[in-house]
């Protein structure tokens, strides 16, 4: 089964708006959570990540919130820009000698 799930296959937002991307996971042992960004015909690149010892991490316009009891984490993007248009992949894993599992991705479109 899909251990990491993204609820929205796609999302559209007006430039300047705030958007939230969501990700749910099943494995209690996961303690590393990340968001990757992928432009068309390019490979995924790490956007932001957090470990389970914190419930929030902010980096400029991007903030990841972690809700361990709900097995849920989200990416908040403020002041969205057309260049944010991309596929966003959430990923989670136990770390160490264990694999990182990705969600299926959310296609984000930011309309000027």
């Amino acid at each position, binding site marked *: 089964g899909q251990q990491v799930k993204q609820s929205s296959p796609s999302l559209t937002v007006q430039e300047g708006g705030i958007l939230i991307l969501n990700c749910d996971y099943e494995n209690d042992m996961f*303690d*590393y959570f990340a968001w*990757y960004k992928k432009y068309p015909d*390019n*490979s*995924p*690149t*790490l956007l932001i*990540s957090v*470990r389970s010892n914190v419930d929030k991490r902010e980096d400029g316009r991007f903030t990841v919130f972690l809700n361990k009891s709900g097995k849920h984490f989200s990416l908040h993007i403020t002041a969205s820009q057309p260049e944010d248009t991309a596929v966003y*992949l959430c990923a989670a*894993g*136990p*770390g*160490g*000698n*264990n*694999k*990182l*599992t*990705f*969600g*299926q*991705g959310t296609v984000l479109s930011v309309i000027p």
Partner: protein
Amino acid sequence: NAGVIQTPRHKVTGKGQEATLWCEPISGHSAVFWYRQTIVQGLEFLTYFRNQAPIDDSGMPKERFSAQMPNQSHSTLKIQSTQPQDSAVYLCASSLRYSNERLFFGHGTKLSVL
């Protein structure tokens, strides 16, 4: 730093033929990962090496797929008797040591099985 290098960028094979995909990780990175990307399944984990040793191959189809890392500078993914359902983009990634660190992905090899 050229990043993770994957060759070839595109490969077309006939059904039943063998395909070998190559990956050169970033120098100094000890962890190498293979993923397969399809529209239906998204990014699926295949296998993971650390210090050239296989750590987790739980995502590898048991038949026809094999992966090796003969030295720290390259890894190969081999698919025997390719089938149309093997068509996908195969991505290789490397990290300094573990999966809970930044993964650097290559551009991928697009495999098309006719």
